[in-house]
């Protein structure tokens, strides 16, 4: 045990800028894991001050009090009490108070003080507050509350320096604080801490920052029952249009790059298995996935801007009735919205839903939210089968994409409603959602988030997808056709045999053997199917066909009905092992991932079947 490293825990209200402060102090030196035995994110970072001292910072989940209503808050309390098994008790608590919302922060500070740990109070966001007329006597506050009071501006460089200096003045060898008598605060205690907080703030000359009239006016519009919903709808629609139209140029660029790389390899290598592995396996496969990076970046940029700006909880407010009508809590909106990027963080975000039934229901339908990994599949099929036409203001392809997203949402609502019908469930849903002040999205934050997303996407492409494509190439190239055989080489391969076997089950919904084969590695992750199709078709075609875009290749090989059927399949099918693994972890059993897999594949088959038959009937 390294006694030179002080363990510091950051505690504060949600939305107090605690995480920004944590990031400011730890730089990139963070480690994200899970608390042992619980599915709550544990964020630990290392701080090395100018004087050479080292600290371990722990960013605890935001909480309104030490009486928890969610699992997150329970973790904060338990870590602060040293009750959480292997997690050692922190030696010092930094209470991060939001200068814009001091009364509640002070109340929490008073509760935290009862823990008996050395405490430092930090007033964050003082820059904004000062502009709004905030004033306070810091010295006096420090005396009243019995702890040093430091001001920080977490979003500015050097904004945490004063805090770090204060940490340096702490004695290096702090004896572990024994857990003195602490009992859970009673109702009277809550009343008391409110009164005490008000008294202290009055005594130290606290002037409350005036709220921004601009924000009030904006809220009047955005929270308006009619206009608010209208704006939400328009906003979402705009996002989908943008994802397609803005990404077109960068995608063409990447496509050209991939094709020319393949050409270069083909020209500079002799024909042989290695060249085939490179061009048809690796380049064709991974290339067909990487090309969708621009679309994913654009979608994430919008989500991050809305999140940073503070709009998302307001959308939850607007949609709470809609969600309530099928039996979901409005709090499910943010996890479900996150699932539009990727279901995995979305499912993890359901930890903030207090009711277990609601949480399970939300987890069950999170994969139906069109995740970003579906984008490559949708984009490929739309490019191949939906004409690029403009109808009035709207692009037909964008409309179809929106319709697919909409179908996922409607599917989810129907599933939840059915779940509630069969399994009952009470109507007690806690909402009590805070609507934080709007703020300008921080570009630095945005860039960091996008970079992280892009990095994750490319890393996945570079590792598991690459490996799967190599394996698929192997299965598609061997056994090699005997000399003198006619037809494409792939017709003799393992892949073909596997595909033909699956195709028996999948033929009724219009899938040929190439699709069937692609769906197998496609189980690992949704975008892998695109890569797999790229590889399978690269190996099937002659030289000319290979240099055509995959979308053109499948447009000429499949019927419209098949294309539409595959689209319908992908709205529902759980082609993502990682998601199932996370569900297992979050629910601590195999039961729910199994139920989820079964019902999703069932829905996928039904939807594909209906789409295929209807499309065939129309085209006949």
């Amino acid at each position, binding site marked *: 045990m390294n006694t030179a490293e002080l363990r510091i825990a950051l505690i504060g209200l949600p939305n107090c800028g605690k995480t920004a402060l944590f990031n400011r102090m730890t730089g990139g030196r963070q480690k*994200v894991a899970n608390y042992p035995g619980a599915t709550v994110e544990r964020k630990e970072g290392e701080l090395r001050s100018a004087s050479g001292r080292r600290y371990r910072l722990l960013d605890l989940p935001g909480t309104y009090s030490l009486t928890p209503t969610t699992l997150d808050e329970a973790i904060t309390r338990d870590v602060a009490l040293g009750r959480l098994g292997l997690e050692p008790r922190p030696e010092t608590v930094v209470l991060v108070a939001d200068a814009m919302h001091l009364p509640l922060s002070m109340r929490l500070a008073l509760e935290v003080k009862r823990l008996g740990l050395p405490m430092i109070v930090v007033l964050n966001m003082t820059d904004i507050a000062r502009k709004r007329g905030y004033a306070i006597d810091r010295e006096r506050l420090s005396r009243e509350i019995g702890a040093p009071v430091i001001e920080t501006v977490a979003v500015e460089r050097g904004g945490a320096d004063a805090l770090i200096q204060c940490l340096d003045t702490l004695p290096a060898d702090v004896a572990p604080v024994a857990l003195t008598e602490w009992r859970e605060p009673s109702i009277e205690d809550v009343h008391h801490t409110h009164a005490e907080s008000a008294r202290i703030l009055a005594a130290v000359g606290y002037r409350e920052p005036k709220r921004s009239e601009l924000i009030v006016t904006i809220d009047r519009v955005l929270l308006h029952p009619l206009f608010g919903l209208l704006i939400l709808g328009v906003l979402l629609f705009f996002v989908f249009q943008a994802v397609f139209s803005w990404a077109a140029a960068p995608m063409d660029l990447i496509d050209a790059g991939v094709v020319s790389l393949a050409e270069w390899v083909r020209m500079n290598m002799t024909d042989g298995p*290695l060249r085939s592995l490179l061009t048809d396996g690796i380049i064709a496969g991974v290339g067909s996935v990487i090309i969708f990076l621009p679309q994913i970046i654009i979608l994430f940029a919008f989500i991050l801007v809305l999140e940073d700006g503070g709009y998302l909880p307001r959308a939850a407010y607007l949609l709470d009735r809609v969600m309530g009508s099928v039996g979901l809590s409005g709090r499910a909106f943010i996890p479900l919205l996150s699932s539009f990027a*990727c279901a*995995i963080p979305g499912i993890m975000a359901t930890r903030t839903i207090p009711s277990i039934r609601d949480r399970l229901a939300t987890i069950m339908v999170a994969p139906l939210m069109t995740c970003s990994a579906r984008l490559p599949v949708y984009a490929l099929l739309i490019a191949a089968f939906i004409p690029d036409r403009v109808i009035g203001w709207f692009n037909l392809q964008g409309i179809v994409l929106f319709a697919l997203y909409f179908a996922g949402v409607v599917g989810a609502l129907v599933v939840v409603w059915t779940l509630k019908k069969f399994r009952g469930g009470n109507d007690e849903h806690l909402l009590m959602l805070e609507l934080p002040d709007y703020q300008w999205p921080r570009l630095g934050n945005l860039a960091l988030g996008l970079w992280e997303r892009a990095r994750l996407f490319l890393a996945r492409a570079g590792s598991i997808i690459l490996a799967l494509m*190599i394996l698929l190439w192997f299965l598609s190239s061997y056994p090699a056709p005997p000399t003198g055989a006619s037809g494409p080489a792939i017709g003799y391969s393992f892949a073909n045999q596997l595909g033909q076997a699956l195709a028996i089950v999948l033929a009724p919904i219009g899938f040929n053997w190439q699709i069937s084969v692609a769906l197998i590695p496609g189980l690992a992750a949704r975008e892998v199917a695109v890569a797999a199709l790229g590889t399978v078709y690269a190996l099937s075609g002659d030289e000319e066909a290979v240099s055509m875009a995959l979308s053109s290749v499948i447009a000429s090989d499949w019927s419209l009905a098949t294309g539409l059927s595959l689209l319908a399949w992908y709205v529902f099918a759980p082609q993502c092992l990682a998601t199932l693994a996370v569900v297992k972890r979050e629910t601590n059993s195999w039961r729910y991932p199994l139920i989820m897999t079964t019902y999703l594949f069932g829905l996928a088959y039904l939807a594909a079947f209906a789409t295929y038959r209807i499309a065939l009937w129309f085209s006949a």
Partner: protein
Amino acid sequence: MMSMAYDIWQQLLVVLTVTGASTYIFWTVAGAAWRLRLVAVASRVLPPLRGPLRRIRLRLESPAGCSACRNNSG
């Protein structure tokens, strides 16, 4: 003959790549028990690698190691 040597290198490279990819996939999908078996087999088949393989085995066997609780945000 030059072209024959080139061919053999090519084929060897392909075999190594495919084996590597397959091992990686197995490793990613498998739980700790299967990974340990893989490490045991590899120790027998590839004696030169015994050192690093032993380290991997120890890391797998330690309770609640860092890798065991790393969350999967993909």
